[in-house]
C-alpha cells in the first residue's frame, strides 16, 4: 500500500460525525470604503496617497530617480530607470518597485497583487509602491476572495503594509526581510 492509501484508509475509521459546510453570510460594513481602507493601511504601517492619481505617482518616481534611486516599474504607464532583469537575483539592489494592485480590502488594508514578473519583486525591493483603483476596494475578506483572480500555475498575494517583526522583546520593527516601506497611490 502506498503512503497515500494508508492515510486515506486510516481516515475511514474517523470518529467524527458528518458536518455540513456552513453558509457564509457575514454582514459587510460598506460605509466609506476609502476611509476604512486608509485607517486600516495606517494600522499596518502603510501610507496612502489619495490625491493626484497616477500623475502624482510618476512625479514621485521621477524625484526618486533624481536622487539616484534604482526604480523598477511593472505598472503600464509608469516609467522607472531599471528593466526587468534576466534573473531574479539581479533585483537585489532595487530601491523602489512599482507594482499594480488589483484589489484593496477596507477591513485590513491588504492589497491583492497578481503574479509579478519575477515573483520575488515585491519582497526583494527595499521599498514597495502599489497603485490601486479607488473603485477596486471591497469591504472585507469574504468579498475579496470571491473577486481575486488566482490563475492556475500562478502566485497571487495579499500585501498589508511593509514587512515587519516583533520577535525581539515584542518591539515592533518595520522592515524585516521584505520591503521596508509601503506607499499606496489611489487613482
Amino acid at each position, binding site marked *: 500500500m502506498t*503512503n497515500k492509501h494508508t492515510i486515506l484508509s486510516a481516515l475511514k475509521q474517523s470518529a467524527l460525525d458528518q458536518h455540513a459546510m456552513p453558509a457564509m453570510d457575514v454582514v459587510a460594513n460598506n460605509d466609506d470604503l476609502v476611509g476604512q481602507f486608509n485607517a486600516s493601511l495606517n494600522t499596518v504601517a502603510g501610507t496612502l496617497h489619495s490625491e493626484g492619481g497616477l500623475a502624482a505617482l510618476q512625479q514621485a518616481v521621477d524625484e526618486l530617480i533624481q536622487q539616484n534611486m534604482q526604480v523598477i516599474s511593472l505598472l503600464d504607464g509608469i516609467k522607472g530607470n531599471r528593466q526587468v532583469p534576466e534573473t531574479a537575483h539581479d533585483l537585489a539592489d532595487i530601491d523602489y518597485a512599482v507594482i499594480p494592485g488589483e484589489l484593496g480590502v477596507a477591513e485590513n488594508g491588504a492589497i491583492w497583487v497578481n503574479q509579478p514578473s519575477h515573483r520575488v519583486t515585491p519582497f526583494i525591493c527595499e521599498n514597495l509602491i502599489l497603485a490601486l483603483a479607488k473603485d477596486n476596494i471591497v469591504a472585507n475578506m469574504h468579498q475579496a476572495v470571491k473577486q481575486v483572480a488566482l490563475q492556475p500555475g500562478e*502566485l497571487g498575494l495579499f500585501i498589508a503594509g511593509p514587512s515587519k517583526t516583533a520577535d525581539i522583546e515584542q518591539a515592533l520593527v518595520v522592515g524585516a526581510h521584505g520591503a521596508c516601506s509601503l506607499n499606496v497611490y489611489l487613482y
Partner: protein
Amino acid sequence: MTELYTASGSKVHAHKADIFCRDETRVDWHSKALWALREKRDRAAGSLPEWEQLRLLGSQLKLHTLSHLAQYLEQFEQQCLSNGIKVHWASDAQQHNEIVHGILAKHKVKKLVKSKSMLTEECHMNPYLERHGIEVVDTDLGERIIQLANMPPSHIVVPAIHMKKEEVGELFHQQLGTKAGESDPLYLTRAARAHLREKFLTADAAMTGVNMAIADQGAIVVCTNEGNADMGANLPKLQLHSMGIDKVVPDMDSVGVLLRTLARNATGQPITTYSSFYRGPQEGGEMHVIIVDNGRTEMMKDKILAESLKCIRCGGCLNTCPVYRRSGGYSYNYTIPGPIGIAVGAKHDDTNSIPWACTLCGSCTYVCPTMVPLDKIIAHHRRLKAEAKRLPYGKGGYMPLVGRFMANETLMNTSMSAARLALRVLPGSLLKPFSGAWGKYRELPVAPESSFASWYNKNRSR
C-alpha cells in the same frame, strides 16, 4: 529529586516549570509580554461585531473538512498535479524527512532556507538534514535567534519570546559580529536582515510551512509578517512545502474566514503582512508539497481528540493560558507548548504530567478562533491517562481530594465549571500542590462568581 524523572530521563512539567519559576522577575516579564498579546487580540476581536460568528464559521468549516478529509485531500492532490505541483504523502516523521532529503539530494542542494513550520519541528527535520550534510537556515527572525542559540522554539508564533533583548544582542555579537553591548531591537533586526539576505540570495532551495491548502484550487497559502517565506520560495528554483493533513480547506471562501481571525487572534493585527497563494511553481522552477499524517489519523479515531485538528496555530491559547505564561514553553515535553500542545502532545509525553499543566479555566477555548474545545480535550487526556493507569508522580495522592469532582460524570463533562468550583471551595493549600510548580509562587486564578453561582443554584435545587 529522582522521582521527578521518568525512565527515559524526561522531567515532569512541574519540575521544569519550577526551574523557570525560580527567576520571578523573568516569570513576571514573560507573563506580561504574553498578556500584552492577549490584550491586542481582545482589541482586534472586539473591533469586529461579527467576531463570534467568524469563530463559529471557522469551527464549522473545519469540522466539515475534517469529516470529509479523504475527499478533500484527493481533490487537493488532483488540482495540484494539474497546476504542475508535485505531491508526496508521508505517514510519519521519518518518511517526511526521507522524502524531503530525497528531493534535496536529487537537486544537489547544499543550503536550504526555511520559514516557520511547526510540522518540521515536530518531525525533527533540521537535525536529520544536517546529518546528511545540508545546511538549514531558519529565516524567521525569532527562529533564527533560537537556531543560533541552539534552542527549540518556546512559542509557536513568537518562538524567542523567552529571550531578553540583551541576550539576543550578546548572541548576535558572538555569532553575527554586531557591536558588543548593543541590544536595540531595530539595530539587531537590521543586522539579521543583512545576514539573512545573503542566505536568501545563495540558497539552493526553500522550504515553508503551510497555513492553508485549498482543495478546489490546488494552492497553498503561506502567511508571514517578515516576508521570509516569500523571499525564500521565490529566489531558488526549488520550493518545498510541508503540511499536516489537517491544513486542507475546501475553497477560497474558507480561506476568507480564517484569514480574518488568524492574525487578529495571534498578535492583534488585522491580517499578516503577506498572505501568499502559491498555485504552481515559478517559471522554470519546481514546487513540491509533502502531506503528512504523523499521528493525525490516529487522533481522528477519538471524537474528542479529533477536534484539536481544527487548530490553525494562531498561538492565542498560549498567550491567554495562566500556566503557560508562568511556566514557559520549555516545560511541556513537546515541540508545541501551551493548551494546544497538551491537546496534540499529551500522548507523546512519557512523564504523563502535561495534561495536569492546566487549571481547566477554559480561557483557551474561549479565545480559540476555531473553537477547539481545549479544556474538554485536556480533561479527556487526564481521563485517558488515568484509565491507562499512567498518572504522574504526586497526582495519585491528590486525586481523592478532588475525586468527588473528577468522578462525577456531570461535572467531568462540564470540566470548566468543575475547575472553577474546585478553585473556590478547596483550600489553596490543597490545590496548590495539585497545580504544580506554576502555582507555588502565585495565587491561583480567581474563579468567576457567576459560574459558581450557577453551579450552586443548580445543585442546591436538586
